[in-house]
């Protein structure tokens, strides 16, 4: 090897001298820029066929002496497509290098290190910044939707700033968390809304990931298999999402300003009856029930169309975002500063979300071997929510209210005051417009995520590093219901105040080793880590207010104390971990990792868990027998196995706890302590063992890259809050019982069908087919039953042998027609069916319809998910199109019970127009009936196919040509974008993508009065200086 270098140098020197002597030399100069028009410092400019060359300076400029006009210059820069230019008679040659999207030598971030993509042994989805943020997503998790095989993003609400749930390779836990671990620049952050929210305000939980500005993200790596996740030990079972933020580039300087503005609107409304139609329905309902008609429906024809309550609560809402960043560096230091302001009005009146994010990243070489650096991220967000997610037998969501309201009522009375409540039912619901405008529901979050490190290179191949990070959360929630709206009636008036302070700190010390010994390459890392989290919170609420003017700024004026409590919760972790990557002949790859995790949450008998993994990779292409096969440009086979844990259980689960109570003795109180939790010394993490087999195949010079993975993940020691007999004095105890299995197939392909310098087309498709099955549970045959929704219990149960989120209900059997013998129709005990009622299938030998006739009606998890993105570049234009969808899941549309009540006691969807009458003998919709014999029976009529395919995003971008040479400006692009453009689905609710209780594995797949999703149109630009 050494000899070769010598030779090159020798030839270089010789050629230099020779050209100096013999050539008809002349000088060429120019500038090299990247695809955004920014100068590319450090680009190699070499005369083809020689070793003579130069390197561009800070401004991207170069000067080179060429021997003659026949010379060809080769411009190359890592990560870009190499360009060649014939010199001809030119004396100035400016070149713009395009990003090399096909390059295999991409580096992928893994836990506690990074690896060349070609050396990966695990299953990792890597998403680059451009894919997520180029088109103005509102938050990181939104940007992940459909982007990686096996990663499902579930939204519980369309409210701006609302939390999402991400599932990597399915649900692994029933009682513990299912959210992946989020690691930002090496710092595991707190992502559980339960630990970051005081829950004093109403509405959906806020998104902990909102504190990260998508524009600051360099890359997102999703670790899916145990080879990647086992290094996160007891927190790795749900997968790990590594987020790397942007840093400055050496010897450069760049200012970027970008902005976008968009308009959002509800993606679709539910067609509802108008005032006349509801009155006609109401009259028919009372007639059928043989009760007098209601005065409010006296003369339907006079009522006209009335109020469209959906129109009243939905609006076209603007969203805007401004981003300024300044980054750069010298030879010894790099820096990045960014500021972001984001403001999103909600599509439901009275709701909005805004935030300011500031970030600074700095790295500096203090001495040749000593490096220091860090990053700070500060976010302040404010959310004004509307109540769309409260539970209850009567829907408390104003979206449900808007659907239920009588269109015959106006929003306001003639005197300008709000109409107080609906007039068709008792108890009545309130005016949703008044509720949205008058109820104040604010959450303010301040979050600081920061880290600092010091790294010392002991040897070229060995360094040590110490890192300190912290994640500080401050949350203030203020909620006020005034006395003059329906929601505030019982108080009257209500104020809830809550605040939460959370501190998460992490200290890690690591040793890194990296060396090539001939045919052996070894890299290893060992880390000692300590982390702790504490939260403190105070919550108070009062009711009985006389005056609405002060709102939540005057809780003291409330006369009735509802609740006042404070609390503390904390956990600590202490871990030792390590990994060795060994490569033989650059062909055979081995990764071994292990982590020993100690957690304060575990019982005394199980304080430490060990989580090992191994993975093997074989670069088959490097073998002789494939070298000659030109079609195959790369092939790697991967296999991995490992064990991870899930310690996402509430702190103190192992301890026998006494709670303080205030025992009354007359009007004097004394403190008492009562047993609250049973102890369990053996409580421990849930264990997931995962095996993965996959391969990466590149065809035709890697124009087509295919990745396939098959996995099986078995979770044992499932933590269950197992019911124990009440006669023990307790309702339940945390026990490690039960097991569950997730297996699946993942496929991703990236193709570059056209790659010439004026027109390029890149297309990426990913899909996964996950399968979940509960293997073992404790307790009765009923399994684990979800909480009832509008009084319907057992709508979904976790049962052995079935996937989590299996729906149970009756099968319908059409509508009873006139002339049918009631005795021949199995019906509910003690009730006689009449023509026009819905019939159900009797599944057993008895003659009655009851709970025993319930059958499986579907499941919440899709059989198949896919995402397909296309990127077309023509000259300076770029068009991206992203389509995404789920196939094979069902949704329980609880809204249908009120939308199709056919009682006249609330407004109905236009399905009511197809109701059964003696004339219109519908076999799908029953007759109108003011007092139906049965109500709220879950059947296949409410369980709908939730499959959809949706054009998620279309963006057209125009890059300002470099030729324009506008002073100062070094590049600019403009774009227009449309989101949630079009959806193909049979689902009749607002949006199949929303799942009301998505974060609770026991109650997935329900649609119940949520805040709908929006569709939006956005224009924006990005400029560099």
């Amino acid at each position, binding site marked *: 090897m050494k000899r070769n270098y010598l030779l090159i140098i020798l030839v270089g020197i010789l050629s230099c001298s020779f050209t100096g002597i013999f050539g008809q030399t002349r000088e060429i100069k120019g500038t090299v820029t990247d695809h955004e028009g920014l100068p590319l410092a450090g680009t190699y400019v070499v005369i083809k066929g020689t070793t003579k060359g130069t390197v561009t300076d800070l401004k991207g400029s170069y000067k080179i002496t060429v021997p003659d006009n026949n010379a060809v210059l080769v411009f190359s820069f890592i990560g870009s497509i190499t360009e060649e230019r014939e010199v001809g008679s030119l004396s100035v040659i400016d070149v713009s290098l395009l990003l090399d999207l096909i390059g295999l030598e991409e580096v992928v971030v893994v836990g506690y290190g990074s690896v060349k993509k070609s050396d990966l042994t695990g299953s990792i989805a890597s998403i680059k910044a451009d894919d997520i943020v180029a088109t103005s997503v509102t938050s990181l998790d939104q940007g992940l939707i459909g982007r990686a095989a096996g990663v499902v993003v579930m939204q519980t609400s369309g409210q701006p700033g609302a939390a999402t749930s991400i599932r990597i390779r399915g649900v692994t836990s029933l009682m513990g968390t299912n959210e992946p671990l989020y690691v930002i620049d090496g710092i595991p952050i707190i992502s559980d809304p339960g630990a970051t929210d005081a829950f004093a305000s109403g509405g959906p939980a806020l998104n902990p990931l909102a504190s990260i500005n998508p524009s600051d993200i360099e890359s997102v790596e999703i670790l899916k298999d145990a080879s990647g996740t086992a290094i996160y030990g007891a927190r790795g079972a749900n997968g790990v999402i590594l987020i790397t933020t942007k840093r400055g580039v050496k010897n450069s300087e760049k200012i970027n300003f970008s902005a976008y503005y968009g308009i959002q609107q509800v993606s679709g409304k539910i067609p509802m009856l108008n005032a006349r139609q509801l009155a006609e329905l109401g009259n028919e309902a009372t007639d059928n029930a043989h009760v007098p008609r209601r005065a409010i429906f006296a003369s339907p024809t006079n009522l006209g169309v009335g109020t469209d309550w959906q129109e009243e609560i939905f609006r076209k809402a603007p969203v805007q975002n401004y981003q300024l960043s300044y980054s750069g560096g010298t030879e010894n230091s790099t820096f990045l500063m960014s500021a972001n302001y984001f403001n999103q009005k909600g599509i439901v009146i009275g709701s909005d979300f805004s935030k300011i994010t500031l970030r600074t990243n700095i790295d500096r070489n203090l001495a040749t071997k000593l490096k220091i650096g860090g990053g700070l991220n500060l976010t302040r967000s404010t959310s004004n929510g509307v109540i769309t997610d409260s539970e209850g037998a009567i829907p408390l969501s104003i979206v449900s209210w808007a659907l239920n309201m009588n269109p015959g009522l106006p929003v306001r009375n003639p005197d300008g005051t709000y109409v107080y409540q609906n007039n068709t039912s008792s108890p009545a619901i309130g005016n949703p417009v008044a509720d949205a405008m008058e109820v104040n529901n604010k959450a303010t979050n301040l979050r600081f995520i920061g880290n600092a490190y010091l790294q010392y290179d002991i040897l070229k191949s060995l360094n040590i590093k110490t890192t300190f990070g912290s994640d500080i959360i401050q949350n203030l929630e203020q909620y006020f219901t005034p006395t003059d709206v329906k929601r505030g009636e019982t108080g009257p008036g209500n104020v809830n105040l809550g605040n939460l302070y959370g501190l998460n700190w992490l200290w890690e010390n690591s*040793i890194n080793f990296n060396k090539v010994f001939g045919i052996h390459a070894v890299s290893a890392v060992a880390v000692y880590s300590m982390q702790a989290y504490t939260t403190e919170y105070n919550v108070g609420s009062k009711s009985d207010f006389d005056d609405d003017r002060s709102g939540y700024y005057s809780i003291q004026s409330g006369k009735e104390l509802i*609740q006042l409590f404070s609390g503390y919760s904390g956990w600590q972790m202490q871990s030792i971990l390590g990994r060795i990557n060994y490569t033989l002949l650059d062909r055979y790859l081995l990764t071994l990792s292990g982590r020993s995790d*100690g957690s304060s949450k575990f019982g005394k008998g199980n*304080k430490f868990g060990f989580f090992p993994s191994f993975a093997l990779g074989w670069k088959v292409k490097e073998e002789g027998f494939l070298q000659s096969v030109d079609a195959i440009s790369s092939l790697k086979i991967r296999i991995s196995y490992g064990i991870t844990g899930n310690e996402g259980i509430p702190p*103190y689960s192992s301890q*026998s706890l006494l709670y303080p109570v205030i025992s009354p003795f*007359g009007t004097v109180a004394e403190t008492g302590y009562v047993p609250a939790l049973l*102890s369990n010394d053996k409580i421990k993490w849930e264990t997931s063992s995962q095996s993965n087999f996959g391969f990466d195949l590149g065809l035709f010079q890697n124009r087509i890259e295919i990745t396939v993975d098959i996995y099986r993940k078995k979770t044992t020691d499932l933590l269950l809050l197992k019911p124990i007999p009440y006669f023990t*004095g307790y309702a339940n105890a945390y026990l490690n019982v039960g097991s569950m299995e997730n297996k699946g197939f993942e496929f991703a392909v990236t193709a570059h069908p056209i790659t010439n310098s004026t027109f390029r087309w890149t297309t990426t498709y990913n899909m996964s087919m996950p399968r979940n099955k509960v293997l073992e549970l404790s307790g009765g045959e009923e399994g684990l039953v979800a909480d009832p929704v509008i009084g319907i219990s057992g709508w979904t149960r976790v049962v052995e042998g079935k996937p989590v989120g299996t729906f149970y209900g009756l099968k319908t059997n059409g509508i009873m027609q006139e002339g049918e013998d009631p005795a021949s129709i199995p019906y509910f005990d003690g009730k006689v069916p009449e023509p026009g009622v819905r019939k159900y299938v009797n599944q057993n030998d008895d003659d009655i319809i009851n709970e025993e006739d319930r059958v499986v009606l579907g499941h919440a998890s899709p059989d198949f998910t896919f995402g397909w993105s296309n990127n077309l570049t023509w000259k300076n234009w770029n068009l991206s199109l992203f389509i995404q969808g789920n196939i094979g899941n069902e949704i329980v549309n609880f809204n249908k019970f009120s939308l199709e009540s056919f009682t006249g006691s609330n407004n109905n969807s236009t399905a009511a127009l197809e109701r059964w009458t003696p004339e219109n003998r519908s076999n799908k919709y029953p007759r109108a009936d003011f007092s139906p014999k049965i109500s709220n029976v879950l059947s296949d009529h409410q369980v709908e196919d939730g499959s959809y395919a949706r054009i998620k995003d279309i963006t057209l971008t125009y890059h300002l040509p470099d030729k324009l040479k506008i002073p100062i400006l070094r590049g600019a692009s403009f774009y227009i974008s449309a989101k949630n453009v079009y959806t193909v689905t049979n689902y009749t609710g607002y949006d199949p993508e929303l799942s009301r209780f998505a974060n609770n594995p026991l109650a997935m797949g329900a649609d119940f009065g949520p805040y709908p999703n929006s569709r939006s149109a956005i224009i924006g630009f990005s400029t560099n200086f």
Partner: protein
Amino acid sequence: MANTIIKVSAMRKVILCLMAGIVISLSGCEFLDEEPKTGVASGNFYKTESDAVAATNGIYEFLSFGLEGLFDPGYGGVYYNQFWIAQDICSDNAEWLATSLDHMQLSDFSFDANNLLVESLWWDYYKTINLCNTILAYVPPIQMDEPRKDNLLAEARFFRALMYLDLVRMWGDVPYFSDPVTDGEAEGSRARVDKAIIYDAIIEDLDWAEEHFLDEYRKGNGRPDQYTANALEARVYLTRGMIGSTAKNPEDLQKAIDCANIVINSGKYHLWPDYADIFKLKNSHSGEIILGINFSSTLDAFKANQFPVVLLPTLKKGKDGLHNTLGLLIPTDNLYDSFDDLDRRKSVTFLTSYTFPDGIDTTFQPYVSKYWDAQAEPKGHPSDADFIAIRLAEMYLIVAEAGNEINNGPNQAAYDAINVIRKRARFDGIAEQDVLPDLSGLDYTSFRDAVLLERQREFVMEGHRWFDLTRFHQLIEKVEASSKPNATPQDFHYLMPIPQRDRELDFNLGQNPGY
């Protein structure tokens, strides 16, 4: 050479780092210790006298409000509402108006083992028993004044007895625990214990408590003392003495009389001359109240009792009228009509009209209003009124009932006892009315009927009726005679069903016949 030096110093650094790591690891044993602050780990509790007192105080929270949150299934303590609602709706006294299926089933005797009211009472009793057992296990080793400690243990034993008495009265044989439950995994199957054994344990607890209550320590405001123990023992002996419809145990019945007389003659309690005074807020824990369960909305809106919510009708006009009253339960006509119009208890027990602050009158069907001190709490809810678990009138009626049973006919003591109660009911606050004359000259059966009727009128919604009807073995007869709509009591309703939930978790529990 230079190279080597670098390597050595580098090695030293590595070693130092490793050593630092080891030091941290060693200290880490403590680092992983978990210290709850919102609650206290039981290992750090039961150390001092104040811990012993606080542990015992906890019992009173379980009796009244309970630990569970508003939306948890076990919301409310033993006497929060289910107890007194269940005893009267599952009888000829009251009907449930609202749409709760569990209440309605209890009201018309169609309930089964899944009934949530029955289940939640079962749980409340056992939760309180487990707390008492915890105190009885962990307080004795605490270093403190011994007689004071014994007084605290006596409280725990008293309430354990109170809970077990209701368990055996309602379910017959039940699982019996005298030690705290400590490990969820280990608590498996528990067979039901013969109620005779549990009665013995109850009496043993009460005897011990009686001896160890300290006169001068923890008095008043709902804490029991030796007379409270005597009073409860009277109830225990009376219940055990009346075995089934005909068989009885004269020895137990005599003990019931003796215990009741100790309380009556203690001089500690006296009957209020006016029946209405029993329920005045200013009279709580005094006069004839032997054991009152504390509720206090003054302390916390959520520590209010549920009487106005459940019992008073909805009377609201804007901001005027009653607050949060739902009128979920109404007395049967049979109960209302069983009172003579001049019986003081009729006007105190029922409400049939209301005058709004603006002077408008409204009249309605009768609702139970005895717990409502309208002067002190004009808005109704939230209310400070206590639940009265034991009061002196019961002692008189025990003397009357047991005296009649022992002698197969009333003796003079029995007449005297029941006539004390009738005399008080004649007093309307100003003078005695011409109603409820003193009883005399009755045979066994008529006197027995008279006692049952007197108890019915005296103790409406005080948690007695189902117990009385089962003890007198007249549940079916009386409910059928009351023409309460749809109510069809059966023989098996003399016991409550063992909750299905617990049966599924412990197959050895078995079920009472009929369910």
